[in-house]
């Protein structure tokens, strides 16, 4: 077995995941009447309103941890652009024709950066209409714009998270990597050949 995520990586990831779930569900409750029933999970409307920003801020802080841990391995390289060009082949279930991948593939990198940008936007815009403390400090027009950007960023973040979660279910072994921290040599070779060579020193195909 090869270690892919340290204990700290995994704990940090799942903290953010749990907070995402809380912030996401409480936020959706206010986004569309069809989801208002979700306020029941958080103790009713007022409590959901009170808790949502805190879930958000803590999720952001948690993601700062993930950012520090993972930003280097998510730097975009020319081979990632090549990978994206071939992504339709992968979606058909054929991974063998894809370009060789390092620790993260282009899809994982895209998820990382989209989430980072969305979370920054969510934090900045969220503070602007955070009742009762900060909202009054911002002009109403700015708050109107902030709400729209907040909702838009949240939608993009949720869509990205759906892709992220689906990819983890789709590519067997990924969930194990993030729960137990390890992957098999075969898995590493198949999905992240360049990373496999790097950690093992093997140059086999």
């Amino acid at each position: 077995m090869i270690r892919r995520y340290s204990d700290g990586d995994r704990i940090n990831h799942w903290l953010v995941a749990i907070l995402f779930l809380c912030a996401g569900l409480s936020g959706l409750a206010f986004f569309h009447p069809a989801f208002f029933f979700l306020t029941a999970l958080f103790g009713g409307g007022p409590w959901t309103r009170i808790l949502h920003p805190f879930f958000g801020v803590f999720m952001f802080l948690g993601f700062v941890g993930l950012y520090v841990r993972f930003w280097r391995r998510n730097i975009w390289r020319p081979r990632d652009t090549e990978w994206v060009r071939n992504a339709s082949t992968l979606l058909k279930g054929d991974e063998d024709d894809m370009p060789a991948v390092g620790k993260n593939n282009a899809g994982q990198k895209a998820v990382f950066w989209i989430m980072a940008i969305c979370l920054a936007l969510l934090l900045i815009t969220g503070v602007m209409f955070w009742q009762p403390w900060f909202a009054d400090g911002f002009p109403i027009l700015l708050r109107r714009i902030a709400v729209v950007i907040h909702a838009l960023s949240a939608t993009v973040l949720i869509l990205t998270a759906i892709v992220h979660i689906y990819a983890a279910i789709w590519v067997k072994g990924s969930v194990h990597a993030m729960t137990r921290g390890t992957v098999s040599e075969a898995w590493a070779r198949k999905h992240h050949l360049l990373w496999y060579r790097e950690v093992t020193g093997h140059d086999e195909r």
Partner: protein
Amino acid sequence: MSSLQSLDIAARSATTTPSPDARRHVTEVAKLIDVSSCIGCKACQVACMQWNDLRDDVGDNVGTYDNPRDLTPQSWTVMRFSEVEVEQNKLEWLIRKDGCMHCEDPGCLKSCPSPGAIVKYTNGIVDFISEHCIGCGNCVTGCPFDVPRISKVDSKAYKCSLCSDRVGVGLEPACVKACPTGAIRFGAKEDMLDFGAERVVDLKERGYANAGVYDPAGVGGTHVVYVLQHADKPELYHGLPADPHISPWVSLWKGAAKPLAVLAMIGAVVGGFFHYIKVGPIQTEGGTKDEV
């Protein structure tokens, strides 16, 4: 004044199905505020405090008669005093009673995420239902007139209810009752507009060529209408907006964005599921169950 059992709910916040609306023969009401007859005595402010049993903090003097300086959770109506010179060397003291305009198309109701926290009755009154208010402040951003205020004490939104409790039992709003000059009138909106038109004719005869009734079409008309001496320049009256409408940002967010985003999210989940059904998982060949 919150129960759906009144059967006269024309619109209800964050609600996608029709509300009980069987009693639709109700006449649309309006409060007419004739700014040209107002003497700024603030009896309406006092009557509002008294009927609604509100006590604002004692404010401070900032060199105008405005007291309190702004609408607050405890002051649902405030006299706004504006000193203007429309013609040079002819000072005019314009006194406008500010408060909720009770829009036919209320931006607060559109913005509110909590089902039933804001309702509009068939008579046109827009009311905040505190038991459903969650204190998010969206009504503040939705209002084209900057009227709702969120209490720092209980985190609930407050504004003029047009004395919906009094109107519901056939009484006129408290401010109307108290006004000593007849500057505030209440009745069927049609009658109020007729009366307003008469006042406008009178004002025009007295030299106010641009007198008119303020019943802005941008929000579908309002159930509080003003008679203004200078209806061509409503901004003179402490910034009364010339063409109020629900902000395009609010319309975008509560209009197209909501269903599209929900559709996209549900689409992504359903799409993912069927992708799995069609393509199946990517497994590592040769790995054991634990290893794959």
